[in-house]
């Protein structure tokens, strides 16, 4: 039986830091591999969320192990700012940063920016793919050895180890290089939610890791056959543990029951070849705490999960070392 990686999806409306610190610390102490922090460009119905990148940065110094994967939108936003913010999250978390890109097709979100009409779905994902390309190029635009501090010549950097990215596309062009040196992971982990064909294609082009929404182990296998084999695959499960009810319908499978029953379900799904599961607590903090308190010991007992000792998120998730495209080109 292969071991799984475990993630939790945090979708909370708190604005003060305390509740966020409690949630992420609980996940950190339980040694989950990472949390995603939900966000959208505009406020969703039922209450706004705080900016997820800033929430991730706020809790980074309070935690030691957990990967921090905020959602940030590619529509309307500046790829340059996204790239530098996420690189900085990687610095403040010492190599634990990730990013879940999201698109915004909503007309009311477009008027918050007031610059253009909403794009169609194909274009939204095309723009998102361009944004990810720019973000990734900017991360690589400094070679790891660019800072030389050479007092003999008075040079702080070797400018030949910095690179213009010269990206030009239909939605934006970005010159580079980044203002932020290459982040500790080189390339922080990019994750994409994929439950429609256009998102599968986007994930294959842009992501390291994909969240899928199967209804059972058989459908997980079926989805995996459609995915780029290089992607790490995480199955989403909405989790209601204990006797709490009120499980609302979701795009993902909704589980309601005991921790042992949930472990049974995860064990069955694990046979489909997925790399991990992302648990979406139905109610916070209750279901997250039940996951850490009841589910994790059960999964460890079954040898389905073991806390990782690896510090950086990419490496922990079994992703290959991120080679620098410009360094490779320079050495070729």
């Amino acid at each position: 039986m292969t071991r799984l990686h475990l993630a939790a999806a945090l979708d909370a409306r708190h604005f003060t830091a305390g509740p966020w610190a409690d949630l992420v610390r609980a996940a950190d102490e339980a040694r989950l591999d990472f949390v995603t922090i939900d966000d959208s460009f505009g406020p969703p119905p039922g209450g706004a969320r705080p900016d997820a990148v800033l929430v991730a940065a706020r809790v980074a110094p309070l935690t030691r192990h957990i990967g921090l994967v905020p959602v940030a939108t590619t529509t309307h936003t500046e790829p340059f700012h996204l790239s530098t913010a996420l690189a900085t999250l990687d610095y403040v978390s010492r190599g634990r940063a990730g990013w879940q890109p999201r698109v915004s097709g909503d007309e009311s979100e477009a008027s918050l920016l007031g610059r253009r009409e909403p794009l169609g779905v194909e274009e939204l994902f095309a723009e998102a793919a361009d944004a990810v390309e720019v973000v990734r190029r900017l991360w690589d635009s400094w070679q790891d050895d660019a800072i030389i501090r050479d007092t003999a010549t008075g040079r702080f950097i070797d400018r030949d180890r910095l690179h213009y990215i010269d990206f030009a596309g239909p939605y934006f062009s970005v010159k580079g290089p980044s203002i932020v040196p290459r982040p500790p992971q080189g390339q922080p982990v990019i994750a994409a939610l994929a439950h429609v064909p256009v998102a599968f294609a986007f994930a294959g082009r842009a992501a390291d890791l994909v969240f899928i929404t199967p209804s059972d182990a058989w459908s997980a296998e079926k989805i995996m056959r459609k995915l780029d084999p290089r992607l790490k695959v995480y199955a989403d499960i909405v989790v209601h543990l204990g006797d709490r009810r009120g499980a609302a319908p979701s795009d993902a499978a909704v589980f309601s029951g005991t921790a042992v029953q949930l472990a049974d379900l995860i064990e069955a799904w694990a046979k489909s070849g997925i790399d991990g599961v992302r648990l979406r607590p139905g109610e916070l903090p209750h279901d997250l705490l039940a996951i850490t308190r009841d589910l994790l010991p059960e999964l460890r007992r079954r040898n389905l999960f073991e806390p990782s000792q690896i510090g950086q998120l990419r490496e922990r998730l079994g992703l290959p070392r991120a080679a620098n495209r410009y360094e490779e080109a320079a050495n070729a």
Partner: protein
Amino acid sequence: MPKQIILAAHFPGVNNTTVWSDPRSGSQIEFDSFEHLARTAERGRFDFFFLAEGLRLREQRGLIHDLDVVGRPDTLTVLAALAGVTEHLGLAGTLNATYHEPYELARQLATLDHLSGGRAAWNVVTSPGAFFGENFRRGGFLDHADRYVRAGEFIEAARRLWDTGGGEFDIESSQFSIRGRFGVPRSPQGHPVVLQAGDSDGGRDLAARHADAIFSRHHRIDDARQFYRDVKQRAVTNGRDPDSLKVIPGVSYVLGDSDADAQEKAHHIRRQQVSPQTAILLLEQLWNRDLSEYDADGPLPAVDPKLDEDDTIIKGRAGMYPDRLRTSSEWRAKAEAKNLSIRDLIIEVTGRQNFIGTPQRVAEQLSEYVQTEACDGFILVPHLTPAGLDDFVDRVVPLLQERGVFRTEYETTTLRGHLGLPERG
């Protein structure tokens, strides 16, 4: 009670004030450096920590500038992380009104204000020109006059959003046509503190209308008093209480065991700040010509500066010399009178430290500036990362506290409270 001094800590920047060649110089990018400076400032009961913003690496002669510290983190992300390791310290970030958008930035600043329990501040800057624009969707389309129009409308829009308490807004102005629901509930400060950086006429007007504080250049005390009176008068003209607009210049300092010791240290630091290569580059910024063939230990070039402001040799920095010919003839006269090499001259005419002396003398001078209405406080710019503020906090702060001109404990929880600014929003 004597007037209280405002103190802020500027993280060392990407210019030659920051000395990286010193063995004590640490990383400009690792979080430990930011945490050290912020914790030091909080230990010293400072009002706030201050961070600049980078939008593109500087270039000179068409090449990425490599002689100063290069590379820095994203402003808001570092401030959010610092909120996790400090409790009282204000967290001020420079964010450009040209390359951000009101909804997104107002939301991020309100988020930071929530996540820090009311400690967020925004230092508004503007840039014209296509150089930075090449990294952004917007490109570079603003002409010089429109910078302040956009900045003013941007601040007004942000304040409107903060005033919604999360509700609906509908804004039509020359720069913005935006509407919808803001979402973010009222943050602890209502409006994060707004600083405006810059001494120009347009900058002063913008500050007098919109800002809580103006981040100015340091001036000699008479000029500083005149600047102070001018800015406060502009606030009054705009119907504001002059106390609601603080004047906080950025300053550097050098401490020594005696005044002579401090002067000697100051000179040593100036030589570190102006390497031979840096001397030539700084001279090029006035001359606007490639001077790479000149010897920094030799005399000034015989040719005059090139007067073409549309094609300057340096990109990514604000224009520093309004009258190149006049300044160059002043420099030439000084070099000839004292027989100075290029490097010696540059050391003398650029960026000498503002306060040099024993802790006692520096404390006296800082206090004199504030008590005689030359400013309301200071943004201290250390020359070393990350420990450059340690000596000030250990040796000068206690003297200011003894004089009764600086707090010994935090008395409020928000930055607006520390600064004694009125409620907003």
